[in-house]
């Protein structure tokens, strides 16, 4: 299973993604520079975290016009699995592959710590290995993770079971202290209508080994692996 990890100028989680993928022998990750125009024959694409193009103008606003994004767009439109983590989520929103936008955290602070998120649906190729309702402890590290969308879009996301992860308290509540950045509906991750493009602010690739303090992110890679082994090559 060939997996492209896109490196933009300013990406800084591309190696984390690569190493997390490498833990699973079935994945063959490869870095793809943002200036490349083709993905060749890959089975999945990761847009990693970081500060692509310095986050100038708006996070992800310039990265979405990187030459590789045409290929990513075509890959996603054809149904290929795409995962955007943190800055990658911001790029996916800016590019229109996912609805909404990520605003400045309502605390105005860069938040870098573990959070608890609840798996809201296992009906995606990224979460099938998790039980719905499971609470994961996974790090966040962002200044602009405050998910915003208009009321109509939020209703659509909720109605179509497209909210994949929600920030919760350690016991799974939505009350005080659950939401680290002001996100609407406590949204931490969503999929597109076709359910093949995932964007999430927390970092599953930083929660894949006991040494990292949590292995709760492994399920995402296991889900993707199960999905890719079930589709004909």
């Amino acid at each position: 299973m060939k997996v492209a990890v896109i490196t933009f100028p300013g990406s800084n989680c591309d190696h984390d993604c690569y190493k997390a993928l490498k833990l699973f022998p079935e994945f063959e990750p490869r870095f793809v520079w943002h200036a490349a125009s083709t993905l060749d024959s890959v089975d999945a694409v990761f847009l990693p975290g970081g500060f692509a193009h310095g986050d100038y103008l708006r996070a992800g606003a310039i990265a979405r016009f990187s030459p590789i994004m045409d290929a990513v767009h075509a890959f996603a439109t054809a149904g290929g699995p795409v995962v955007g983590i943190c800055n990658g989520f911001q790029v996916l929103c800016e590019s229109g592959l996912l609805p909404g936008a990520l605003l400045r955290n309502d605390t105005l602070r860069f938040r870098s710590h573990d959070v608890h998120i609840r798996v809201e649906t296992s009906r995606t190729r990224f979460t099938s290995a998790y039980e719905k309702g499971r609470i994961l402890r996974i790090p966040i590290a962002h200044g602009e993770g405050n998910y915003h969308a208009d009321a109509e879009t939020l209703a659509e996301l909720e109605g179509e079971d497209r909210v994949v992860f929600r920030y919760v308290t350690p016991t799974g509540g939505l009350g005080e202290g659950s939401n680290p950045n002001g996100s609407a509906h406590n949204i931490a991750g969503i999929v597109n209508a076709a359910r093949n493009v995932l964007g999430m602010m927390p970092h599953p690739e930083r929660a894949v080994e006991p040494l990292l303090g949590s292995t709760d992110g492994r399920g995402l890679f296991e889900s993707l692996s199960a999905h890719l082994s079930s589709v004909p090559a």
Partner: protein
Amino acid sequence: MSHFHVEVRIKPRAGLLDPEGKAIQHALDSLGFEGVDNVRVGKVVDLEVEAPSEKEAIDRATQMCRKLLANPVTEDFGITVSEPTSAGGSEA
């Protein structure tokens, strides 16, 4: 062709929470500036645009806003074009 000075002003959509504006309002309040409300923080992009007419310069700046400079989900934009700073090239 003339050179136009274009000023693009981008600000958060009305009704959208602007935590930065809120923090500044709070700071102004604690400095004793009373009666200040609705502080919103945006950005200004200055451009020099070459275009045959002022209308064309505005049209091009509008396209730039729609495509890149502003995010239609969260931001509104305004455009001001000032008189040509100099006449470039030869007259047709």
